């Protein structure tokens, strides 16, 4: 791989393709979500410090507030050879007192999940994938 390609990957995070598949993207009064992550180098063999998963729920109107956030490290010091693809299965466990998905007229509360490789420069990632948590808000969360 040429120097310019390496610089481009450093800036864009394009050294690997990170795919995130949500097995059950609608959580209905449940707090476990199963995901599969697939990582494939776009060119040369890659070395990453870690593969990590971020889960968050964001309240958004003209302001954005992260109401809850989790990070999971799925693998550390990993190498994926050119042409190979690696796959990880993981179950995200959310606590019961997290807020549900909520769509009002002027604000929203949305959940998202993203898988990333910790590499020099911009981390290759799956982008934020939306999922839904449908549940009743607990009384203690309202007061």
């Amino acid at each position, binding site marked *: 791989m040429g120097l310019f390609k390496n610089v481009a990957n450093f800036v864009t995070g394009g050294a690997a393709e990170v795919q995130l598949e949500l097995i059950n993207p609608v959580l209905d009064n449940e707090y476990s979500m199963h995901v599969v992550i697939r990582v494939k180098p776009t060119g040369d063999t890659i070395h990453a410090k870690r593969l990590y998963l971020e889960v968050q729920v964001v309240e958004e*109107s003209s302001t954005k*507030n992260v109401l809850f956030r989790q990070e999971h490290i799925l693998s550390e010091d990993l190498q994926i050879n050119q042409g190979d693809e690696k796959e990880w299965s993981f179950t995200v466990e959310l606590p019961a007192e997290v807020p549900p998905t*909520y*769509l009002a007229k*002027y604000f929203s509360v949305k959940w998202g999940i993203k898988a990333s490789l910790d590499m020099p420069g911009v981390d290759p990632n799956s982008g934020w994938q939306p999922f839904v948590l449908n549940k009743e808000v607990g009384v203690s969360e*309202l007061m």
Partner: protein
Amino acid sequence: MGIFSKIKNYITGGAAEVAVVFENDLVRPEDKLRLFVTASAKDDCKIKKVYLHIKCEETYKKRETTTTTDSNGNTTTTSRDVTKYYSHFTKELVLAEDILLRKDSEEKWLAEFEIPVDALPSFKGKDCHMTWKVFAGLDMPGNDPDSGWVSFYVQKKVDYTVEQM
């Protein structure tokens, strides 16, 4: 009670103390919200009506931009997030009409209200909220004695899909 006290009550709404007592302040759609409005008279009260306002209100932030120009013609633009309110639902229930409540007496009225099937559930975030509340008042000459706004909670699971995100 002297004339000054009557004038004060006329202005402040202090002729009676009004309160809201919930049987259950946590309801689901199609359930009935049941509460009592209580009034304790500090002076004779000639009441046209006893009313209860019910409201579902969304609180959110909106970015507002202001542009000012000084005497030298320099323009400055500033933005800030302002708290805004939007009413999704309002209703008035009249609980009683044409009542004379004597000084030092107490009265209570039952209010029942069915939460609409399509009601939005209560939500409490950081900047944004969905709040259900009631306000009881006595319609009298001058300022109405009232309970102020009192919150109750609507609990409901909404079934969203990923396509809506």
